[in-house]
């Protein structure tokens, strides 16, 4: 299982688990980021610690440090 800072750019993965603050978690889930959802990391800004994720056709940016309780599993290469 990987955290956001371990995921390479362009990697396709699935959200495995989502923990942490209830409001944060609920907002992400309402945007469709639920366990089992395919996620692609599309951008990483090293200096700012931001990542951009592609989830269900939408782009969402998160701070890596704040999203440290999200766990992903990489998709096996087809």
């Amino acid at each position: 299982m990987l955290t956001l800072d371990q995921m390479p750019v362009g990697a396709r993965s699935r959200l495995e688990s989502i923990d942490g603050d209830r409001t944060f978690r609920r907002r992400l889930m309402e945007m469709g980021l639920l366990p089992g959802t395919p996620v692609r990391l599309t951008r990483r800004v090293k200096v700012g610690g931001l990542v951009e994720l592609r989830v269900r056709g939408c782009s969402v940016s998160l701070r890596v440090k704040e999203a440290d309780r999200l766990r992903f599993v990489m998709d096996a290469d087809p």
Partner: protein
Amino acid sequence: MTLLNPTDPPPLVTLCGNPNTGKTSIFNRLTGLNQKVGNYPGITVEKYEAQITLDADHPAVLCDVPGTNSLSAHSVEEQIAILAIAGIPPLNPPDLTVVVVDATQLPRGLYLVLQIIETGGPVIVALNMVDLLEREGLEVDTEAMQRELGVPVVPVSGLTGEGIDHLRTRMVDVLDAPEIARAESRWEPDGAAVRADIDAVAEALPESWLRKSPARGQALAMWSLLSIEEHDELEYVSAGLRETVAARHKGADAAGRDLDREIIESRYSWIDGHLGRFLHETTRRRRSLTERIDAVMLHPWIGFALFLLVMGVTFQALFSWSAPAIELIEVGIAKLAAFTQTLLPDGMIEDFLVGGLIAGVGSVVVFLPQILLLFFFIGLMEDTGYMARVAFIMDRLMRLLGLHGRAFVPMLSGFACAVPAVLATRTMGRQRDRFLTMMVIPLMTCSARLPVYTLIIAALFPPSRIAGIFPVQGLLMLAMYMFSTVMALIVVAVLGRTLLRGEAVPLILEMPSYRRPHVRDVLRMMWMRSSLFLREAGGIILVCTIVLWVLLSFPKNPTLDTDYATLRTDAQETLSGAELDERLAQLADEEEGAIFRRSYAARMGQVIEPALAPLGFDWKIGVGIIGAFAAREVFISTMGVVYGVGASADEESPTLRSRIRDETRDDGRPVYTPLVGLSLMVFFALACQCMSTLAVVRRETRSWRWPAFLFAYMTVLAWIVSFAVYQGGRLLGFS
């Protein structure tokens, strides 16, 4: 079909949708020009409403609901959506809800649609941006989508207006026969445990929420379970409901269940299971236009350079492009004043109209060019989707300050003028962030401080160069800009950790697709927001101007030490021609000054002198500071009157400059030394001498508490720092 009784109020249609779905374009398409903008009761959420005519015998009221991803809410601002859509008192239930869905972001849109269907009211889905979807190689079968959802789906384009007529026809159909747009909830809660939780909460709902519909009870129970928590900012939630929700969450937690996830996941599993039935791939999916643009816009170097360019243009516009319009307004107001003077006989009424009323209206209208320009640029950034990228790029810097990336544009705008900048804070979601930003914007060096700095620097500092290269005067000006910026950053850091401490809210930044901006929508938004300013802050500014006018020009006809009438007669007897005119003009200025020194404002200056003396200021500067409350640049004309060189003096005026240099204290020492000048500039940099800013903060926070705090902290800060500069300078041996 029931015929409408002409005296019945027209049916209410609410328009809602996710943020950035082009909802505003569709609202504008449906309404035309007759919109009204106001506020929802008690909060600063703009409420756009319009009377519309769907067809000859179908009038309706269309009400725009702020964009939202979900009906669940944690603050009063977010709560508007559920109140408006479910029709919970104090808001009325809508006769129809139109949901705008961005076809390119279908799953997220459907999540909202499902919730609205659950509340049991008639729903029409307006599917926007279908053309964009096709470019991405996808296609929606609206017939199939309609079948799956059980409510009408109408493809539209906010940009071209395509499909809007069809939408109107469907709205008429639904208003005549609401049942065609009413569907049962698309899904049922999965599992006995969650059903029991929902039923228990439904039992605790207030009677006024239910409107006798059991389906509604279930929807509102789910809303309560997702929304109500210990530290929410919701209103109208009864203690009983609160307890039930808390108990149910506690019970679920104990059993290792996650109620939030159970409800949200059920909706998404419906979407996952049905989406494939109406969304089809036509060609191989291509990288979307947005992804290609972002490769440049969010590029570490190119993106940042482009960002600086955009901000530079915006700032330049506020700062320079607005100047001709501002000048035009000022000239127009002056002409109007002069014209009024020729119309009316000299006296109180003329004086009030010119000095109070016309000046007051002028001081409101003069903000319009900058406000319009700023809202034009903000509208453009929002409409194209670039605003989210600004937040993305600036996040790191603003996070250091404990602020959101979106605070950047308002803070930058503060360098031009605090009034539009404060209005711009409403692009930020959280109230705490908005208030914190508002509290520091007035510290930014706004353009009204420039003339004051120019006057002081030109009068008191030599035009020499340091090391033969750097001009002292230019460096001082730059130093004042840097000083105010650093002070603002310190204040943000302090306030953000004390008075406006907020729990760190993790950033969730949605990056909408880029869109071609719709200029008409941008212009309309710009005008609506500006007219809100005119209506709501304008009144306060007007009243303040009139009060200041009274202070500065009363009492009329005080007894003076010098008899100017005799001096005039003397002059007329001894002088002639140009010399006489010059002497008379000089006497008139001096008399004006003498009368002014007896005014209430001058007396107030004398009263506050002991407080200003430690900063190196005498009572005359005190009067200037009082006058500057109307607007900082008024300091100059006030000083012109105080020193008897005429109110028309400006910062370039050589007579005012030399008068300032020559002014002495009772013991013969000069009043203005470079140290006093520095202390005075520091005071102007930090003190909140701007009633318009206070008026607009009052309007945005809906309370007098915040403007009072703003005024108090800035004045105290200004006093302390000026004190430190002046007394510290004296200790170091400067005079």
